[in-house]
């Protein structure tokens, strides 16, 4: 056991997960990486140990297997100080329109799984009396768009869950952060047309997550430009919005 702070990253093999783990490790945290495939996390664990001389633990975690959540949390050797969920799945909107199974997977990966697991951590943190919870949601949850509303609606649900959880948990000393990245250049967005000035690299998101935790920010739009863009999009009347190709 060390006296250092600990962070647990759920979805640790994603680009944003790796970036977040690096940001925390650099700041002196010991890190837990959780994901479906432990072997795939090994190289990242080695990277963090070599760079920052910290302790890194690996944990098997599947966000769709909600039945395992209790034992997952119970099986941790210690509760982390910070838990970050980067879990998510973009999926393919067109397929989701007619394929129930695909739509369900998108909904469960972005809403059900992340909400339930973070809710569970919140209960434990409230008992302990401290802790920070970070959920990576998306600007896509701010308003449903024709091009990705299955994903967007699940993110909307997740954002609402986090804001409610924050309101309740803050009274018990537990802080909840909602992160809304816009376009991030990652595996997930590879091959998509991203708008240059609104696009950030994964390390920028990693640093933003760390800074939100340290400064106790509630909601972070990773690029400040998005806050404005989404403000405008949210306030457009539905009659106008539905005509936009967006």
């Amino acid at each position, binding site marked *: 056991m060390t006296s250092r702070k600990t962070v647990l990253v759920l979805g640790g093999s994603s680009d944003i997960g790796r970036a977040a783990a690096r940001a925390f490790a650099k700041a002196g945290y010991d890190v837990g990486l959780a994901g479906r495939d432990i072997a795939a996390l090994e190289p*990242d664990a080695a990277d963090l140990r070599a760079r*920052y*001389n910290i302790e890194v633990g690996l944990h098997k975690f599947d966000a769709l297997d909600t039945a395992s959540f209790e034992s997952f949390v119970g099986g941790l050797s210690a509760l982390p100080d910070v838990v970050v969920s980067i879990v998510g799945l973009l999926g393919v909107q067109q397929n989701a329109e007619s394929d129930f199974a695909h739509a369900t997977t998108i909904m469960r990966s972005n809403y059900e799984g992340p909400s339930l697991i973070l809710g569970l951590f919140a209960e434990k943190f409230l008992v302990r009396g401290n802790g920070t919870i970070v959920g990576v949601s998306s600007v896509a949850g701010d308003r449903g768009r024709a091009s990705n509303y299955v994903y967007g609606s699940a993110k909307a649900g997740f954002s609402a869950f986090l804001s409610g959880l924050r309101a309740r948990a803050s009274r018990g000393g537990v802080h909840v952060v909602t992160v809304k990245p816009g376009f991030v250049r990652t595996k997930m967005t590879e091959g998509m047309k991203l708008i240059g000035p609104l696009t950030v690299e994964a390390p920028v998101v990693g640093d933003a997550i760390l800074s939100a935790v340290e400064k106790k920010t509630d909601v972070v739009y990773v690029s400040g430009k998005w806050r404005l863009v989404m403000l405008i999009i949210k306030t457009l009347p539905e009659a106008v919005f539905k005509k936009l190709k967006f």
Partner: protein
Amino acid sequence: MTLVSGWGRFPVVDSDVLRPRSFEAVGEAVAGMAGSVARGNGRAYGDAAIGAVRTIGMTGFDRVRSFDPATGRVRLEAGVLLSDLIDTFGPRGFLPFVVPGTRFVSVGGAIAADVHGKNHHCEGGFGRYVDSILLRTGQGEILEVSREQNSDAFFATVGGMGLTGVILEATMRLRPVETGWIRERVISASDLDAAMRALDAGDAVTYSVAWIDCAARGRDLGRSLIYLGEHAGKDELARDAVAFPAGKNPGLSVPIDLPSMTLNRYSIRAFNELYYRMGARRAGGSHVVSLYPYFFPLDSIADWNRIYGRRGFLQHQCVIPEQGARAVLGEILDRVSRRGDASFLAVLKKLGQGDGILSFPLPGYTLALDFPLKGDILNFLDEIDRLVVAAGGRLYLAKDARQSRATFEAGYPALSRFNAIRKSLDPACNIRSKLSQRLFDEV
């Protein structure tokens, strides 16, 4: 297909760009189609990092595999940037032995070009500190190559411009340092003779480089500022200074392509006059500066290549053997200053012997110049090349976009040995870049 270019933004060509996520996927990308080459962070100026058909982006491979804090030996994936290495291991007391003029280059790119720093004259190039390389050849093998094991492939890969295969990982030594500060001494030289004498006098100093005002003519031809540097120890820092200063991300950036009017002989001359005078005022004593402005003066402005306008620019970097260098350098600088449209500043420095078979450095002086791409610049540079070849010199492949095959062959006499090794590693010639199509005997 995507439009791809190097840092100089010339040439711009269509290539199929892939970003593999695993070493197996790299293998598939190479094997799947003849005509691919690895690309690091795209800081080579011309066409070296553009595949004949397919370009394999490597910056996603950015993991450190292991680090030994006792020896500074590190094993890493080829896409790790030197900026990342400096940020990560600098505060732990280690820096790369060799850094080029920008820190935004990948380890793979630094090995492939065997990059030189301001210390080449006494400490050699990047490859000298690389112990082994994990190489994916064009034939499909994954080889560990080092000075002892597959040494031909090792010395062809160091400086081999990606043509022996894709570098997946490397083990290299880092330099132990007490601080991230450099003790710098600036010398002003009133002409080319004085500049060359000052560089010669700096032979025993670890870092040395001269910035030449290439707008100066006549008696002032070659007037320059020489920057000498040594790593500063802890005891040389002010009491409240941090041992390792933080590197800032580029603050300014050039948001658009400036109209090519912005750079003209008047603006260049005015800038250079100011630069020289400001530098000359600091000349004489020594002072301590952070490693970032010392090694990477241009990195503080992101996307500075856009100041040359949309058509891009060419860099011309030659090395001239020591014997007779004075006359040739004088002639080149004279022609450049008469034209009046070259870069703000030219860089002159001394090099030692290169390590790789195709490494650029040879004992002598290297001169680097930027030219906006316009007018008859291509013909002009062909003329300069004739002077270089006649003097037994050569051009740097990492900066080249236009030299002729004849110039290349004259400058690199070990080429046939390189080709033989390359052929044994990749008989079908699957690895092929736009540069190799242009300069090597292939389609």
